[in-house]
Structure formats: C-alpha cells, structure tokens
C-alpha cells in the first residue's frame, strides 16, 4: 500500500472484478464442455415420446447432465400441464 493509495477512494480493484467475472464464466462454459454430445438429440427424442401422451411445451422439459468424481447423473425434469388438460389429451 503506497501513500497515494491511502488517499485514493477505496473502490473494488479491477483485477478482483476480472477474477469474479472469469470464475462465473469459466464454470458455466465447463459445464457445457463436459456434456456428452448426444444430449441435444436425446432431449429432442424424449420430448417427442412424451408429447405422444401428454401435450407439453418445449420449455417444459429439461435434461441436465452432471458429473461428480465417480458418477455421472442424467436428470430429466418434465413439468406436466394442469391435470384436466392432460387428462383430456390422453382420452381423446
């Protein structure tokens, strides 16, 4: 810390802003990098199958891939529409 630094207004240093931005960005980009390449196709086909039985939106389904030290998890999340709607679509 220099004498002049002492009088400068204390605002966050630009290097720590850079570090924070990088950490967020790199973590985000790495999560995509480790995904298996079949994931987008899998998501598309699953959606097609589910739509045969329930009418769901494109956004109502999400496929997440996570990788730990010793296991890989594929998480499938489907938000079903309101009961009555889906009931109707099934029995028509």
């Amino acid at each position, binding site marked *: 810390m*220099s*004498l*002049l*630094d002492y009088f400068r207004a204390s605002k966050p*240093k*630009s*290097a*720590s802003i*850079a*570090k924070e*931005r*990088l*950490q967020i*960005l*790199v973590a985000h*980009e*790495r999560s995509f*990098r480790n995904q298996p390449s079949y994931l987008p196709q899998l998501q598309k086909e699953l959606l097609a199958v589910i739509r045969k039985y329930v009418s769901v939106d494109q956004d109502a389904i999400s496929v997440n891939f996570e990788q730990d030290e010793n296991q890989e998890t594929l998480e499938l999340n489907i938000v079903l529409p309101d009961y009555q709607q889906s009931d109707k679509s099934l029995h028509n």
Partner: protein
Amino acid sequence: MARIIVVTSGKGGVGKTTTSAAIAMGLAKKGHKTAIIDFDVGLRNLDLIMGCERRVVYDFINVINGEASISQALIRDKNCNLLYILPASQTRDKDALSKEGVGRVLEELSQEFKYIVCDSPAGIEKGANLALYYADDAFVVTNPEISSVRDSDRMLGLLSSKSRRAERNEEPIKEYLLLTRYDPSRVKSGEMLALDDVQEILSLQLLGIVPESKSVLTASNAGIPVILDEKSEAGQAYEDIVARYLGEERPHRFIDGKRGFLKMLFGGRS
C-alpha cells in the same frame, strides 16, 4: 522417440511464437537436438523471430505434399547447431495441412530429434487443432488478462478431448502454464490478475512467469530468441522454464518484482 510439445493459447498476441522460439532454443542449448515447426500456415512469423526469414526455401506444406524432403526444408539455426526450423508456408492456406500429412512429418522428425516444438496459430481452427493433435506436452501461454484466461481454459478443453492421446484413451497430454507479460507492480496495485487468481481458475502446473519486458521486442526486432539475451528478465525467465521442464527444481521468480523507494511511496505506475 521425440517428445512433442505444443505451444498454444487460443488467443492471439499472448507470446506463443516468442515462447516457442525461446524454449526451442533453450532445449537445444542444453544439448538436445530440437526441431521447431510453424503451424501458422499463411501467416508465418516464426522465421522472423528466429532470424532465418531469408533462408527459407521449402516449407512445411512442401514437405507434406512431397515436393521437398524434410532435410531440404529444415533450416539449421545460426546460433545453435542442434536447433532446426521448419517454416510454415506463406502462400498457402491452412487447408493444405492434413492430419495424415502432419503425422507423417512428425513421425519422420521423431527419428532424429529429441524435442519437437509445435508453434500453434491462434484460434481453434485447423492449424491449431493439428498443432495440438499429436502433442505429448502442452505449454499453455496465458496473459494475466480476462480474455486470455478464458481462451486458455477453452484450449484445455480441446487438449483433453481432441488430441490423439484422448482419442486413443492414452495418458493425457501433460499441460503446463506459462504466465507471460506479467507486471508485478500492476498486480500489486490491483489492476492485473495475480498468479494466484489465474491458478485458481486454470489450476495447471506452473512452468514459469515471464515478466513484461522490453527485451522481448528488442529480441524480435533483431531476430534472436529472447532466451539468448541472458541479461534480460524475460531471457532468464525462459531459461528457468526450460530447466524446470527438464526436471530441475528452480524457485519461481518475477512474481513480486522489484520496487524502488519512490514507487513504494507513490504507487507503482509504469
């Protein structure tokens, strides 16, 4: 069998060619027969940094296409007779490179050389992909700067997935960090990412820090790899890097930098 080193970064202008030239010269000066290949087809510059631009007759593409033999294309360095340069073609484009062709040339060089240094072009296109494909070791050249760190991380992804070693499920490419253009005074004042910040994100084995140094430009002006400027900080930093790569233990330098009394009083602004 030779050890193939790729010098890579993703981002341009971080010091890949400067580093390639310096470490190839350093390895040769240590008594190892070394070849250095410029993979930047269409934008060759290694010949200038090595000071052999007027001695280029045949190039890498000529050898790949069978228009010249390797021994015809290799240029013996004027400062060290264990160092040979294989320049890139200036008139062709990167599509002239093929995986098989590059593999053949590397295979042939492997018979005769101890180390082969591949100077990668910037970007993640064909030239860069082929420069890393056959590598055993990767020197990831990074500046303490946000876009360079991001691009280095991207290169790490490619090194671990798009190399021959990855395809064959062999032991992965050994990755090393070279932090270049480091300015300790700016790190101290909080305007530049510190070594620890970069390491927290990339977590690579650090081979060395090369401080920002005027001697790098002086060396490239003259066409002499900066490692031969033994008085300069950059030259010494590369000397250390080569020694560490060859297994020597050397304490890291240039992390803190020198600070005079006046600078301490008024803050380092250079």
